[in-house]
């Protein structure tokens, strides 16, 4: 049996609110199936399962705020016999799901919906229809404010509570929460990580000429953005300086062999999110462009997957569209490096002893000096530059 737990979707995340289950008890699931949606400070996130098996038991109910690491469901993995049928509900089973999942004894928590199937207590004034509906929805009548005669709970009160519990946070509240989450992560990063920086200016003449010619032969929907060349150049430069790719955990660098590029995406209305594009080095530019377009669309519509928020091994932020020349970004812990790009702009450039107008780009690498040395950081940016001088082989 495996526990399907509330994942940590960032260094700053402490809990998430279960929005809904996409699979139910008894259903078969495969590794990487999306089985639940969770509301976090960064929006609604789809959560994947990491085992093949059958959902044995749903533990958390929609509307519940569940701390990171707590069990959401139990999954019977292949080769394990089903558990016996549950015993009839007992009084002891009426503890809130949060407590059942292991909350410290005596710790007060917010009102939490009851587990489905547990009968509501008889002493709360409620209409029979409200009682029936609360049981169907798995809600605790004691957590619902009654608006009927003498404070009795009506059917409308139950429906209203269920809807409010399942609804994502309203936009201003979400923005405040996201601001707090960003503040917490960035402050932690600057407090704990000894940042150091290297910068360079890259001649983009060849890359932009190649891109223009390439886009001429592509249809409108298949065209590439310069950002795609930059992402690919970063990913393919990693093997030259592998220590920029990985995590600082347990007081040591833990490099990873795959390159999942975190991509900082600004959200309309404020805030940002940095989901990962997986295996960037293995994708051709067309596939990478489609992946980037899909990721941006899903980041802005609140349909990211949990693994996309946890898997980034190094991040890229590109502020060229905002017209800035360059950026020295803050590292996302526990990663150890982040690459920053400014705008591609024409500047005077010396070519073979003559001054010519050339499109150039400021690139930077912010790195954790515990994991990476300045000399190696410089080699990394030089490798990115070299790759952009041969765009046809990216």
């Amino acid at each position, binding site marked *: 049996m495996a526990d399907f737990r509330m994942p940590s979707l960032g260094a700053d995340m402490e809990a998430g609110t279960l929005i809904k289950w996409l699979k139910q008890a008894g259903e078969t699931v495969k590794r990487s199936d999306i089985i639940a949606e969770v509301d976090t400070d960064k929006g609604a996130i789809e959560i994947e399962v990491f085992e093949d098996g059958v959902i044995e038991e749903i533990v958390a109910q929609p509307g519940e705020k569940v701390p990171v690491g707590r069990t959401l469901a139990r999954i019977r993995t292949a080769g394990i016999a089903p558990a016996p049928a549950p015993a009839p509900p007992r009084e002891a089973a009426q503890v809130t799901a949060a407590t059942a999942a292991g909350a410290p004894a005596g710790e007060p928590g917010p009102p939490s919906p009851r587990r489905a199937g547990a009968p509501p207590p008889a002493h709360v004034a409620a209409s029979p229809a409200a009682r029936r509906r609360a049981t169907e929805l798995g809600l605790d009548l004691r957590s619902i404010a009654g608006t009927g005669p003498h404070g009795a709970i009506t059917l409308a009160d139950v429906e209203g509570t269920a809807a409010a519990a399942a609804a994502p946070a309203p936009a201003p509240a979400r923005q405040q929460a996201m601001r707090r989450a960003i503040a917490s992560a960035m402050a932690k990063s600057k407090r704990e990580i000894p940042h150091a920086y290297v910068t360079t200016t890259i001649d983009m003449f060849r890359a932009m000429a190649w891109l223009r010619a390439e*886009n001429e032969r592509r249809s409108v*929907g298949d065209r590439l953005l310069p950002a795609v060349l930059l992402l690919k150049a970063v990913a393919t430069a990693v093997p030259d300086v592998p220590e920029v790719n990985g995590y600082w955990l347990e007081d040591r660098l833990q490099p990873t062999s795959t390159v999942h590029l975190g991509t900082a995406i600004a959200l309309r209305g404020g805030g940002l999110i940095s989901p990962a594009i997986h295996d960037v080095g293995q994708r051709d530019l067309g596939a990478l462009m489609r992946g980037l377009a899909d990721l941006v669309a899903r980041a802005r519509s609140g349909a990211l997957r949990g693994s996309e928020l946890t898997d980034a091994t190094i991040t890229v932020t590109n502020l060229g569209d905002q017209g800035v020349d360059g950026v020295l970004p803050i590292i996302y812990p526990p990663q150890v490096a982040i690459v920053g790009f400014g705008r591609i702009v024409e500047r005077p450039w010396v070519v073979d002893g003559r001054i010519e107008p050339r499109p150039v780009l400021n690139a930077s690498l912010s790195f954790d000096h515990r994991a990476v040395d300045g000399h190696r950081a410089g080699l990394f940016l030089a490798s990115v530059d070299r790759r952009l001088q041969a765009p046809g082989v990216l």
Partner: protein
Amino acid sequence: MTEQDLRAIVRQALAKVAPETAAMEIEADGPLREEYDLDSMDFLNFIIGLHKATGVEIPETDYPRLGTLAGALAYLEERRGQA
């Protein structure tokens, strides 16, 4: 396709990438990218939206001509006239 139809197409393509513009008055000569904070992905999606709705092929070199509402309308009208 009337000018009104084209205007509706441009507004719709813009609203798809910048939903808040659906209920706004759009200044004919205002630069769309700056006024509505469109990044290069948004602008590409705006162009793709215009292409899908009208069938007009829009080469990359013509993108600057579609930077305002008036420019986009004039461009689409001209290209449809050539078709």
